[in-house]
Every structure is written in structure tokens, then in C-alpha cells.
């Protein structure tokens, strides 16, 4: 590959193979287990995205999507081994370049994860988005202190979404409820368990939301904070992030999205700006009286999915005995 005897860029790069690790067998010669697992992982297959969007399609449209769109669009963003360990993956055609020269790096979390997750997750986590530092980062924890290798490389099983994966971190993996020192905290946890996600109370502020789909016109990203129902668990109140899609996104491929309204545009989101104390942990009134930051009908985006309406949560006032 290439011509090592050439001192000129053009000559040195002649016949070079741009992404040798796109073929997992290359890395799999030595890293057999990892490459085997990775071939089925969500990072590699992007099945999570496919599964999420396909619920908006009819059966016929789903086939068209798989044949015409997925491979050339969504799947083109999949990460090969080298995308994380040598250079940044190209996102929307832009690559941030090599991580550390041409060297393989085991991990360099500041770069490796942030290359792809630097739009919202990483800056929320490190406080660069202005909402304050996530308490875990404040304690010196970085991505892989919670997200284990099995979560990144896969565990050898195929999953449709990240919510199904076994290695996905959960707050309760480390923080057990019931043993709280303060009676008020213990009561708050017991009263809200199963009804409000941990993020619902412990997310400390604004996080990035997207208005208008990338495929539509006038795409913008704005800070916000929204509480509403989790579409997957409609009894649970949680933080929602707006990830809209417009009906004509796939029209060029002949897909009208007959099931457009099956999926909400506001997704339950594990926000990475967790804090021990927030305005909601400090005062019951913020939710139960002011109903602050709750998604309302008036806030819903225009021409959005009808499923968005199901996420509106009507908070009841507290019954004080």
C-alpha cells in the first residue's frame, strides 16, 4: 500500500488503501473475539438507527429504505476499527483527522468518543455546553468508566437498539436506593421510583435539541430542557430530546413514510449533565406547582408526528395530608 520511497505526497499515497480496517478480518487476525463481536455491534451495524426509523415505514417502504437509502446513507457512517483507534470517522463528510499521527491508540477518550459524540453528549458531560459539569466528570470519571468495552465492541449478540443491550450502564448499577442518609431524599426516591427516571430530577439544565430535520430546511440546534413521557414506557416521566424528522426526508427515494406518526420526535434521552442537586430536587413545587419545563401542547413542533401528543404529561398537584 502506498509508495514508501516517494518523498512527495501524491507518490507516497499512490494506490493506498484508505480504510484497511473497514474489512474486520484485517484486525480480526489478532483481535479475533473483539472483531467477531464488533461485527454484530450497534456501532458497526447502525441497526439502532435503522430500527428506529423503520417504524415510520410500511413494509414495502422498509424494503426500499434498506435497498436504496440505508447502505449509502446511514450505514456509511458506521465505524470501522481504525475510525476509532487511528482517525476520526467521517461524519457528514467531515473528518477531524488522525488521533495521534498514524499510530493506533488503544483509547483517547477526549478524542475517540467525542469525534462522534461531540455534538451533544461530550460537551454536556464536560460542561462545555454551559449547563455545568456532569457530576461524574466532576469526580474525574470519563466515558469508559460507565460505558464498558462490551458496550462499545458489542457482546457478540445482535441488538435492535441500545436499550436492549446488556452492557448498557444504569444509574442503579452504582447508586442503590433505600440507604439514603436523609429522610427527605429517601422519601423522594421511594415516591418517584418507577414513575420518574433518574434524569427527570437529576439532569441539571439545558441540553442540545435539534429543530427541523437535517434533511429539511433551516436546521438549527438550540438548548432546552423538556420533561415528558418516555414513548417506550408511557408511565415514566423523563427528559426528552427533540430529534425531528420531516415527512419528505426520504421522498427522493420514493418513501412517503406511511407510518410517520408511529414514532414521536421527542425521544427519552439519557442526558449527560447529571447533578446531585437540581432545582427539582430542591423544591417539589418546581414540578408539582409550577410544572416548569414540562412539554406542553403549545410547545410541540409544527408538522411533527402525532405521537408527540402522547408524551405530554399532566403533572398532578401534591396532596399534602
Amino acid at each position, binding site marked *: 500500500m502506498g509508495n514508501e520511497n516517494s518523498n512527495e505526497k501524491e507518490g507516497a499515497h499512490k494506490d493506498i488503501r484508505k480504510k484497511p480496517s473497514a474489512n474486520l478480518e484485517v484486525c480480526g487476525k489478532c483481535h479475533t473475539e473483539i472483531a467477531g463481536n464488533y461485527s454484530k455491534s450497534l456501532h458497526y451495524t447502525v441497526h439502532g438507527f435503522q430500527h428506529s426509523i423503520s417504524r415510520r415505514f410500511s413494509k414495502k417502504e422498509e424494503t426500499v429504505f434498506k435497498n436504496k437509502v440505508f447502505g449509502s446513507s446511514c450505514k456509511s457512517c458506521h465505524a470501522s476499527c481504525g475510525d476509532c483507534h487511528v482517525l476520526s470517522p467521517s461524519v457528514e463528510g467531515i473528518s477531524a483527522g488522525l488521533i495521534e499521527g498514524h499510530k493506533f491508540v488503544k483509547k*483517547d*477518550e*477526549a478524542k475517540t468518543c467525542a469525534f462522534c459524540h461531540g455534538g451533544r453528549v461530550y460537551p454536556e458531560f*464536560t*460542561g*462545555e455546553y*454551559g*449547563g*455545568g*459539569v456532569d457530576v461524574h*466528570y*466532576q469526580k*474525574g*470519571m*470519563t466515558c469508559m468508566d460507565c460505558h464498558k468495552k462490551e458496550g462499545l465492541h458489542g457482546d457478540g449478540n445482535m441488538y435492535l437498539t441500545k436499550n436492549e443491550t446488556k452492557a448498557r450502564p444504569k444509574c442503579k448499577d452504582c447508586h442503590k436506593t433505600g440507604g439514603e442518609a436523609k429522610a427527605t431524599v429517601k422519601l423522594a426516591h421511594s415516591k418517584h421510583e418507577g414513575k420518574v427516571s433518574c434524569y427527570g430530577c437529576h439532569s*441539571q*439544565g*439545558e441540553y442540545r435539541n435539534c429543530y427541523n430535520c437535517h434533511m429539511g430546511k433551516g436546521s438549527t440546534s438550540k438548548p432546552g430542557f423538556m420533561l415528558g413521557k418516555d414513548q417506550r414506557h408511557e408511565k415514566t416521566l423523563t427528559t426528552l430530546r427533540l430529534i425531528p424528522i420531516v415527512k419528505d426526508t426520504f421522498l427522493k427515494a420514493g418513501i412517503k413514510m406511511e407510518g410517520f406518526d408511529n414514532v414521536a420526535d421527542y425521544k427519552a434521552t439519557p442526558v449527560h449533565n447529571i*447533578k*446531585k*442537586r437540581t432545582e427539582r430536587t430542591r423544591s417539589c413545587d418546581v414540578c408539582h406547582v409550577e410544572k416548569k419545563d414540562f412539554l406542553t401542547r403549545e410547545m410541540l413542533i409544527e408538522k411533527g408526528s402525532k405521537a408527540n401528543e402522547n408524551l405530554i404529561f399532566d403533572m398532578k398537584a401534591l396532596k399534602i395530608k
Partner: protein
Amino acid sequence: MKNVLKKCFMLVILMLFFIPLAAFSANVEPVVSTDWLANNISNPKVVIIDIRKAEDYKENHIQNSINIVAKSWITKKKDILNEMISDDDLKDLIGDAGIRQDSVVVIAGTVAAPIDLVSAARVAWTLIYAGVKDVAILNGGVEKWEKKPKAKPFTPKFDKTLLVNKDYVMKNLDKAIIVDVRPADFYSGDKKQTFVERAGHIKNAKNLPWGTLLNEDKTYKSKDEIEKIMAPVIGTDKTKTIIFYCDTGMFATPGWFMAYSLSGYANAKVYDGSAQEWAADPNVPMDK
């Protein structure tokens, strides 16, 4: 007269400058040098706070320092950026860092960008606001601390008696103590590395697996324990020629190091070529 007035003016300026310092900072200058920090780094009262990003701290940091990123000390309130965090959060932040009222806190940040540079002062201000009196900023930041020593020409004094070759081993087969540090089944010839041509060990070699020198937690055993393990294999004559080898010369060195540096076997040597070179030569003897 002009000079007297000038001196008086300077004195007043100096007094104005030092009076606040005397009131607020009794035990440390507000800006400390890397030399000062190096001299005070083990003082239990000194708390060094590294305010850089967690990844940078993990990669390398000043000894004894703790990491509390600059963004932890500020928050956004409504639309107003960089506001003081709430009193209870600040109380926890300082308490969790192990800072006490009588601590001497040194803030070490990066000076890479102006915002990084001013963040140290912002944290200092916040700590003083919280009632911590002795707060200092590390002048020049972590970069100055990390400044690598300048390269200096090194004149080696090679001790070529420590490194022996195949001919030397061949000539000393019957005179030296040859020690094979590989596991017993490699020594016996039941196993071998693929890159080693013939199984077995150098003729007359004795076996002292290098792993026997270590405890289960990968620490080296005590000098007494190591000498008890070595004595049956290499004897107690500290002047004897002892040649350590393994497969490629890597694993031979822990055995050599313990014999030479710990126990004073002055003629302990390493056969660098080891089994890989020895076994590839059909003219040298091996035992099984």
C-alpha cells in the same frame, strides 16, 4: 526633595499593595512558582487542585494533586453564563476535595488559552469567597511544571561484561553457572516457543523460573526469600560467573537483576541471544 516625594509615593503604593495581602493571605504568596510547589509538595497542608479536563489530568498530573475541572466551579443560571454555584454545592465541592480552613490551596491549570489562564483566578476567587484564606495560583500552570528537562549529552560507561554472546557461553559451558529462567516445561523441552528451533535447554543449564521471584501480587519477594530460592541453583559464591538466559533475553533480566543488584553476584551476566539463537545453531549442545 523630588526624590523624597517619589520614595514616599512608592512606599504608599507598596503599602496599599501589601495591606490586603497581609489581611487575607497569611501563609502563602498569591502566585507561587513551580520551585515553591516542588519544595512544598509533601506538606500535608498543601492541597493542589488541577482544574484541567479530566482526560488531561488522567494522562499526567502533578504528584498529590486532585482534579476538579474548572467548569465545576461555575454554572449557568437562566441565560447568565459563568455564575457562582450554589452555596451547598460549593460547600460539598470544597469539602470533597479535603480542603480545610487552614489548608494552603494551590490551583494548577493550563495556560494554553486565555480562558484557561483566567479560570485559575476564577477558582481562587471562589475559594476565597468561601472563606479559604490561603489560596495561590501556580505561575505558568501545569505546562511550566511539566517542562521537560533539556537534553544533555550523555557519556556512557559501558560494562560489556554484563552482556555475553553465544561464543562466550560455549566457552564457559563447564565453568560458569548457566541459569534458564523459563518455566520448567520449557526447560525440560516438553514445550517450546515456535520461534525456538529446538526444545530443551543449554547443556549444563539449571532451571530457575523467573516467576518464582515474585509474590502473587506481582511484587518482588524479599531479599531473604529471593536468596533462599537462588542459593540452591546459583550457589552462594558471589564471585562465580553466572549466565542468565531465557527465550529472547527479556525474561532473563529479572533473575539477573535480583542476583546482581539485590544480592551482589558481581559476575552475573545475560546471554542476550538466549534460546532463540542457541537452538538455531545445530553445532551447540542442548539437553532435554
